């Protein structure tokens, strides 16, 4: 009889993740499945995943402030942290992708028509590969808040989008990093879509005086926790 010893990734507690149907975020209305989800066992395709490494990365990808002839406008910041799994294990050699607005709250992307200035020296995108301890570090500019059409006087709190792979298809995560003390957070239907208030707070970075660089840049720490793994054996009952 065949058997395969495969890692199994634990499921997040339901209140720790946003529901796909979240009426305060209006765009969810027509973009969530209404039929029940079908359980997908974690087998070979689900416990493996793309290990995207150096081929996509260049040295400058983690520094968003030195790509152009001039310096971008705004507050220079260091965003750093570790990618871990929920068992506390670092996730090394994994791709981290980010995108964000400039200091004025404007994305350099044709879809964004918010009448705030574009910064010719800032494109707002970055990539990094985690080191052996799961660490990553970006140098960027403090993003701005911006209005959106979800409801009257709707403003997104300043945030940086993060995309993570981990080492398995099951661990894939796209999230947003927010800043401590932002007064817009309680009004943001994306932030507040996560039912558990302590889980929400895990999307808020932490100011780090220790990593703040004198005369140069403020630092924010953002650890990202992916679904953790345990070993389990899937096999037929022994005769």
């Amino acid at each position, binding site marked *: 009889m065949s058997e395969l010893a495969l890692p199994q990734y634990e499921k997040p507690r339901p209140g720790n993740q946003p529901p796909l149907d979240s009426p305060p975020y209006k765009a969810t209305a027509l973009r969530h499945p209404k039929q029940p989800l079908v359980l*997908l066992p974690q087998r*070979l395709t689900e416990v493996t995943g793309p290990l995207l490494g150096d081929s996509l990365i260049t040295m400058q990808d983690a520094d968003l402030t030195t790509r152009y002839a001039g310096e971008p406008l705004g507050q220079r910041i260091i965003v750093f942290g570790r990618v871990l799994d929920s068992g506390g294990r670092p996730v090394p050699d994994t791709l981290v992708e980010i*995108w964000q607005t400039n200091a004025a709250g404007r994305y350099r992307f044709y879809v964004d028509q918010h009448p705030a200035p574009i910064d010719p020296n800032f494109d707002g995108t970055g990539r990094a590969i985690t080191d052996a301890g799961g660490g990553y570090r970006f140098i960027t500019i403090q993003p701005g808040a911006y209005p959106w059409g979800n409801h009257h006087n709707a403003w997104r709190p300043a945030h940086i989008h993060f995309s993570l792979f981990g*080492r398995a298809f099951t661990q894939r995560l796209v999230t947003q990093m927010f800043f401590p003390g932002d007064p817009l957070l309680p009004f943001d239907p994306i932030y507040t879509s996560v039912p558990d208030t302590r889980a929400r707070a895990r999307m808020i970075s932490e100011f780090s005086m220790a990593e703040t660089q004198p005369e140069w840049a403020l630092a924010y720490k953002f650890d990202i926790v992916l*679904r953790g793994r345990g070993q389990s054996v899937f096999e037929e009952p022994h005769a």
Partner: protein
Amino acid sequence: MSDLVTPSATVGPYFAMRLPFPAGPYVVPAGTPGAITIVGRMYDGAGDPIPDGLIETWQADPAGRFAHPDDPRGPIPGGDTAFRGFGRCPTGRDGSFTIVTLKPGPLPFGDGRTEAPHIDVSVFARGMLDRTVTRIYFPDETAANDADPVLAAVPRERRATLIATPAGENLLRFDIHVQGAGETVFFDL
């Protein structure tokens, strides 16, 4: 279950600043012998195309192997190839996407049964607070699909939403209906 995992948040409408890359849709380079092209469109619950969506695919190679340390069958015989296993394509204004790949092989399920050839798909979009997960199966694998342990758990009348349809030589169509009539089967992973 874990209390520590970072919550998901939507990719929003601006992910295309960063996530697409020119080789993204090419799981294998264009012109690879035996390559198949999978085209499709993503639709919302009103039947309108989703122009700000993204799909990612992950799959075994034609021999049913993964270049990954957690595949307990060990390294792929013959070593590295140009086969990446991973595809990524944003949707166009008409909701369309394309993936160029090789058809994966069948996989051992672990209990003596066999999984039919399939491609795992993550679906992202503005308005989706978390990804949704679906699978692409192949229309020329009727017997294997009938024996597939994952398809067996899908209500019979919905299974067809997971099976690509022939659209020409080496060309398959796989539309994704996020909601509504013909809603695609999505998985709880």
